[in-house]
Each structure stands twice: as structure tokens, then as C-alpha cells.
């Protein structure tokens, strides 16, 4: 099986997102600003993605985040005192997390199962069929007796929820998702 961009992002970038968010928040960016910066960072990483292995994804990702944040500051016409402080913070290497966040296969599976389990009723059923059983959207609709447009809405909605649980370090949802996992989710989300 060839490895595509989404798999690469799933494996190397997504696990780092909680740390990126925590780091940006610590540097004084607002919640809304962090959302913008995260999206912008993914855009840049996607554009630069060359399909090969990055030896230190963490260093690469944080370098990109730092550039995105610095560009954002440059774009802001009025540079506030806070922003000036941010630049020095972003350049301080001690605020950068160290090791890669790596989950074992067990932990990852627990985390994903917990996330699917947390989805509300119909949405959960859609995800189980689509993602776990691997049936097509059309067949999912048929099996559940739903319109395909409804299935599409569930996919869209569920994906956002799972994204939030997997990537927001300070989110209620993540804690809940984690505590639902049976055991051992000690690494990766701090």
C-alpha cells in the first residue's frame, strides 16, 4: 500500500497537534488565534509535503509553526507589546517540547475506539460502518436506512468531534475520551 499525504499527516503531524496548541497558548495566543495558526500550519506543511520521511517531525513542525506565527505578527498592523513578547517567546528554544509524541498500537486503538464510542447515536453508527467495517457511504446509508446526505452530515460532524478529541490538549472532550479508554493513555497528550 502506498503511503499518502493523509496517512503521513495522521502518523507524524496529528499526534503533535496537542503540543503545538499548548505551546501557542503558553506563548500568549488567544484560542481563536491558535485555531487560525493551526490551520495555516497544516496548509504550509501540506504544500511543502514531499512524501518522504522527515527525520525529526517535531522539530520540523515547530519550525513551521514558528514561521507561521512570525508571519502572522508581521501581518498585524499594530504590533502590541504582547506580540513583541511573543516573538521572543517563540524564539526561546526552551519552550519547545522535546520528544515525539508516539502512541503504541494499543494506546492508539484505545484512543480511536474511545473517540468513536463518544460520538452521539446515529453518528456513531455511521462511523462504525464507514470507518471500522469499511463499507461505502452509499451502503452505510442503505444499512442504516438514512438518506446519503444525512450520512454525509454525520461524517462531517463526527470528523470535527473526533478531531477535537484527538488534538485539543485542554479540551474537556479529550479528557473524557481518554478516561473512557480502558487503560494506559499516559503518553502523547500532555
Amino acid at each position: 500500500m502506498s503511503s499518502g499525504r493523509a496517512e503521513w499527516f495522521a502518523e507524524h503531524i496529528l499526534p503533535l497537534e496537542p503540543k503545538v496548541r499548548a505551546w501557542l497558548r503558553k506563548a500568549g495566543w488567544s484560542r481563536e488565534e491558535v485555531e487560525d495558526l493551526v490551520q495555516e500550519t497544516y496548509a504550509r506543511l501540506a504544500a511543502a509535503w514531499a512524501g518522504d520521511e522527515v527525520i525529526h517531525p517535531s522539530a520540523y513542525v515547530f519550525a513551521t509553526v514558528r514561521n507561521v506565527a512570525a508571519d502572522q505578527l508581521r501581518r498585524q498592523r499594530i504590533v502590541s507589546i504582547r506580540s513583541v513578547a511573543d516573538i521572543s517567546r517563540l524564539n526561546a528554544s526552551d519552550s519547545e517540547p522535546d520528544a515525539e509524541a508516539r502512541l503504541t498500537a494499543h494506546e492508539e486503538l484505545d484512543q480511536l475506539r474511545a473517540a468513536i464510542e463518544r460520538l452521539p447515536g446515529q453518528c456513531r453508527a455511521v462511523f462504525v460502518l464507514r470507518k471500522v467495517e469499511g463499507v461505502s457511504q452509499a451502503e452505510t446509508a442503505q444499512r442504516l436506512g438514512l438518506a446519503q446526505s444525512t450520512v454525509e452530515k454525520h461524517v462531517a460532524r463526527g470528523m470535527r468531534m473526533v478531531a477535537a478529541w484527538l488534538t485539543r490538549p485542554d479540551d474537556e472532550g479529550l479528557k473524557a475520551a481518554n478516561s473512557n479508554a480502558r487503560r494506559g493513555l499516559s503518553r502523547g497528550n500532555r
Partner: protein
Amino acid sequence: METADRVEAAAARWLARHDAGPLDEAETRAFDDWCAGDPRRLGAFVRLQAVSARLDRAGALSGMPVRPRRSWVYPAAGIAAALALAVWPASYAVHDLLHTQRFSTDIGQQYRAALPDGTLVELNTATKVAVELTPDAREVRLPRGEAMFEVAHDGKRPFVVKTKLAEVRATGTVFSVCTEKGLEVAVREGTVEVMREGALIARVSAGETFSMDRDGKVTSHQANQDDRIARELAWRDGKVAFAGETLAQAVEELNRYNREKVEIADPQTAAIHVGGYFRATDPEGFARALEKSFPIVAEVADDKVVLHARPLA
């Protein structure tokens, strides 16, 4: 500015749409346009794509034979049965999409991207490309604008740039394709083939330029154009270069890069021949430089620069 939350909501709808099956042409265009509207959109989409791919991994991981499957109580019986399958068929519908990368630039922007096969693509102003790499083909759609390709050699997988008018095929070459005035191809290294509906129209080699008008009629194919190619590729350094073009032509070229347009007020000014290198994104600087060399007065308004013939004293 659109909030990140709205961007994400739209990205999720697109992801769900992609998840349903391949997009048709109109949808692909709509998706391209949506992506081009704000860089964060593609970012949000890629992020959700990664989440989706991670969920696909749940299927793959659970099928690993090394690990005894744990019992796991699921709230609904039907769902428990679904999860209890020892080997979950992995779902690869999402994969169709993964190999398409899209890049776009706004007016005045340029962008350089490395593709997974080692090819470098540079996008000039107001350009869109969609790249699809599969095991037997490398395909780039160029619906708008201009791009230069340094193609990594791969004899088994020709590299094809598709525009509205024709296809340009290469194996390992350096060339640029511009769709602004029909089709213009300039080759710096190697050879490319210009094809239409499977038929060879021209073979363009290093140092040659080739062009078609908007109706697809071949208008020129010239050799020994190294200087011209170098000038045409000046955009890669953020410049535009002229060597005897009329001011009307030069202004048309410069305006590709700027929202602040240059206008020419009279035919006499339009007919002046100009030369030299100018910064592509500085219409005012261009006008000031002209004022120094020619009987021209530049009038700078809010959103444009108008060039007049200087009145005789």
C-alpha cells in the same frame, strides 16, 4: 476574515463529500475554488483528512494478528458485532484523494513546491495547479496561470501538464507552461512533447519556445531563444523583464502581478518600446523608472497608476 470555526465546518463538509466518492468535474472546480479562497481552508481540510486516515488505521491496527483482541463492551449490540470482526476490512475510499495535491497563488504571489517524486514546481502569479501522482502516471492540471517544472527523471512515468488547449509531456526536463494567452511553452533543458487529443503537435527542445493562440492555433515555434527564456523566467526572481516590447505589452505583463493596475492614457505612450528588469510587484516603481527614461508622466491614484505622455513645455 472567516473564522477558523467556519473554515473547519466547510472543510468537514468537503471531506464528507470526498468520502462519498470521487468528485465530478464541477465539484472538483468548486473544491479548487474553495481552497484557493484562503490558505487556511486547505489546512483545515488536510487536518481532517489526517483524522480520517487515523480512524482508518483503527481498522488496520485491529487486524494485526500479533495482539489478542480485547473484549470491549459497546453500547449498541449491532455495533459491538461490527467491532468484533477480527479483521476489519480497511477502507481506502479516502485514498483516491490523497494523491492529489493542490497549489494556488493569488495575484502577486509566487510559490515553490517539491512533489513526492522529486519534481519541483514553481507557480507564478494567479496560478492554480493540481498534481496527481500515481504508480503509472504523473499528471498536473494547470487550469490557470503559469508554472515552471523541473521534472525528476522517470522513464516509466511521463510527466504530463494538462491545460485547456493541450498537454505537454516530459520525462526529465526543465520547462515552463503559461496559459495566459493561450499556451506558451519554454524549454530550458531536455525535450517536451505538445499533444492534443493524443496527437503530437510539436516537439519542443532546450532553448526553444512554442506558442498557441487561444483558439489552439500554433503561432510560433522558435529555436535559440535562451535569452528570451531567461527573461520569461525572470518572474522566478520576482521580476519581469522586457527587451523591446511595447509599453502596452509590458503593462499587460506587469498587471498580471498586481491588483494596483497600470493604465496607459494615450496611444503614443502605449507604443513606446521598453527594456530592462523591473520588480513585478511594484507598479509605482515601474512607473517612476519609466518617467526617468521616457517623456512620460505617472499619475498615482489609490488603486491604479496612469501613464500619460508628458506635455510639451
